[in-house]
């Protein structure tokens, strides 16, 4: 009996480790695409019904913390469907998107990946990120935050069916958001 138990526990752990590896490998590959400015390939990682959303965060008292973030249907920084994401990528490819020419130098770090729920075909995943950006001679920005993703299993990998990006900043300490998170 005990042997059975420990084998099952070991199998579960191995399955969880494998799943963790799959998700983390997906995220590091995704980050590599962004940092290499391979936006056409990056945007293909999103499902057609995706929702790419970055709400506005507000400094509120602890007793009103439920109102810290704006919700879909209110004002946000990003509130994108797949066609809008494709439009952003098309804009970057025009050769006249001056905010990214010369391109920003970016480095994405994705950590603390936690699979919150596994429904078989879909996974709720939270992660932390740091996006470091430097532009031209003197501009430097660091954004830290978390992402709440819905990952959908697809052809041995995943599609991002939802990404909510929660920045730590309230007043954005940058002149724009011309990069992806």
């Amino acid at each position: 009996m005990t042997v059975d138990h420990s084998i099952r526990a070991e199998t579960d752990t191995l399955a969880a480790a494998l799943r963790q590896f799959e998700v983390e490998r997906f995220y590091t590959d995704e980050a590599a695409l962004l940092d290499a400015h391979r936006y056409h390939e990056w945007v293909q990682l999103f499902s057609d019904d995706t929702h790419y959303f970055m709400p506005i965060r507000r400094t509120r008292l602890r007793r009103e913390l439920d109102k810290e973030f704006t919700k879909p249907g209110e004002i946000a920084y990003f509130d994108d469907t797949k066609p809008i994401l494709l439009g952003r990528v098309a804009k970057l490819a025009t050769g006249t998107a001056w905010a990214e020419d010369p391109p920003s130098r970016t480095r994405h770090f994705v950590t603390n990946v936690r699979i919150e729920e596994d429904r078989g075909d879909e996974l709720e995943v939270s992660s932390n990120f740091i996006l470091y950006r430097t532009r031209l001679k003197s501009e430097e920005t660091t954004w830290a935050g978390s992402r709440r993703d819905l990952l959908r299993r697809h052809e041995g990998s995943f599609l991002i069916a939802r990404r909510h990006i929660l920045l730590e900043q309230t007043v954005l300490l940058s002149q724009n958001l011309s990069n992806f998170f």
Partner: protein
Amino acid sequence: MAIAAEKLQQLVSLDRGEIDRSIFSDSEIFEQEITSIFGRSWLFLCHESQIAKAGDFFEAPMGRDNVLVVRQKDGGIKGLLNTCAHRGNAVCRAEEGNVKNFMCTYHGWTYDLAGKLIGVPGLQELYHNELDLAAHGLREVAQLDTYRGFVFATADRDAPPLAEFLGRTGRAGLEMIAGQGEMEVVPGIQKFVIPCNWKFAVDNLFDWYHPQITHLSALQAGLVPAPTDPRGRQMSATGVAGPDGAELELMGGVANEDTPDQIVFLDVFGHALAGPTVETMGNLDGAVDHSWRDTPRAREALGPMARRAVGHTNIFPTLWIAPEIRQVSLRVPRGPELTEIWWFTFVPREAGPQERAMTIQAAIHVFGPAGALEQEDGENWTQSTIQTRGTASRMIPQALKMNLGRGKIVDDDGQDPPYIECGINEHGQLWTFASWMAWLSGCGWDELRNRTTPPDVI
């Protein structure tokens, strides 16, 4: 110490259409702006709908002062300086919310919604009941008033009443939002920081010359519909080529040299509007709804030119009004080379889900830090600011010479502000700087009104 009058006079030339670059980074000038402009002017704080219930508050900047705009129990609105009468600590550290009181977290002095000091720890034991509570309330702004739901305040007791300060241009600009319905602010004020001088961020709202180049990528990618010339003409762009030598293909074409397709308002205290006529802009494939311009309310409140003007208004110094997208934006000066941008979005209370969604989507995807247009703006202003520092560079005057001397200003003393019918121009920018110079001189309100009364020609 005030800047000498002779030096001030040399900073802006209306005749030559030139401005001295140093005004975009000189710290002495910035300090004088804080006192002479932001310490006296009426400044937009927020919209009434943001503080609907008693105890609702919104913190807004007035120069370097932080003001709590607070809805009172009797329905009124007060503007209270967010600083404790004891040792000056901020009495509220959230940007918005709802409270019953403001309690200072340093020693616990507590103020009611009207700013009255109602609680002091040890009032009896330590102050022996001798502290004059009435004299130690939160300080109020000198004047606070609203116009069509927009809340403004000034730190100057001598400032003229708000409606008079706004002039015909400011009142028309606010009406262009307020007249679209029972307007309310959609939750979520976008706030971000651009390392540029605030005046670059302000004067750009009159600039209908830059979109076809600055925002070319957004037009090419189809994220923003390109305005076309009603007669199908194209602006000449011979010799305009990228670093690879390839000539740029312009998407816009609004450039009639003989037919006026733009309307400009120039007004007292430096208020102005500039931009295309409603016929020129069209409805951009259904993206813009102009129907409000023909309502009885609009006919009553706006003159015929204002109903045809699709341009952006600046209520001097820093309130940008963009009616076509139902937004207003504040350009908040934080330092000579640092400006905060705040975007407020409006929707009619009675709007259905589809209209509401369209307004919100447009607000997020056009302006704002991730918007298809405004992503590109910041870097132009930042780099323009940086290049005012160089010993040699700052000696080169900036040129605002487009259509200079061709702007005939008509003031028929009707409802319409003093207006110009013309092609794309730099009149709004130049007027802003000419008025700015008058403000900076620190002259009294009557003289300021005189000095900012538009000439016959610009």
